[in-house]
């Protein structure tokens, strides 16, 4: 249930970041647009890394790897 929630969150951030990118690019601020995309990417990466950590912990528990 938790995974679905964060999936929607990531999708929302992705849509908004794309809008940010378009708006900033239209205003002629390409560098800010790229910075913005990078910030969004880093934020989403943080969430994904946490989830991956949980996945590895689960795998360790299931196969009794210590």
């Amino acid at each position, binding site marked *: 249930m938790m995974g679905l929630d964060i999936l929607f*969150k990531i999708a*929302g951030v992705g849509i*908004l970041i794309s*809008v*940010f990118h378009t*708006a900033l690019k*239209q*205003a002629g*601020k390409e560098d800010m647009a790229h910075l913005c995309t990078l910030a969004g990417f880093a934020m989403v990466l943080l969430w994904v890394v946490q989830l991956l950590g949980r996945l590895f912990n689960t795998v360790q528990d299931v196969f009794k790897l210590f």
Partner: protein
Amino acid sequence: MWLKILGSLLVIIASVSLGFMLAAQYAERPRQIRQIISCLSALKSHINYTAIPLPAALVQSTGGITGPIAELFQAMASLLADNGLTPQAALNQALKDSNKLVLHNPEREVLSVFSANLGGMNREEQHKSLDLAQEQLSRIQYEAERLCEQNVKMYRYLGICGGLAVVIVLV
């Protein structure tokens, strides 16, 4: 649940109004520069043809204009008349006192240079200096309009999307 919705609404309203406020500042700057130009052309005719004293000419040149620029010229006139400052000192003081102006450094510089020449020379020289100031201001106005076109839309979009992004991250 309701508390979350209420909080999200507040965040979105705050960020949207912030974006629109910044956009309004960019839209206001060309308007104020245009008003200054029209005040200067009225001032030019008051100096050249009616030849009335500077404070009265300044007040009369704001005819038909309302808002911060009219207030700026009227404040400058009253400073000139009451405190006996030089035109440049009066204008600088008036610029400093007014907090509704959204003028940037280039137009402030032009105004300062023009006011330094005001009232110190004969009519033809003042005419020339006013012409120069008008020409410089119209160039600045063109630039400001270009910036306005670019930035107004961007700040509105950023305000709305920024609010939504914050809500998504926090929820």
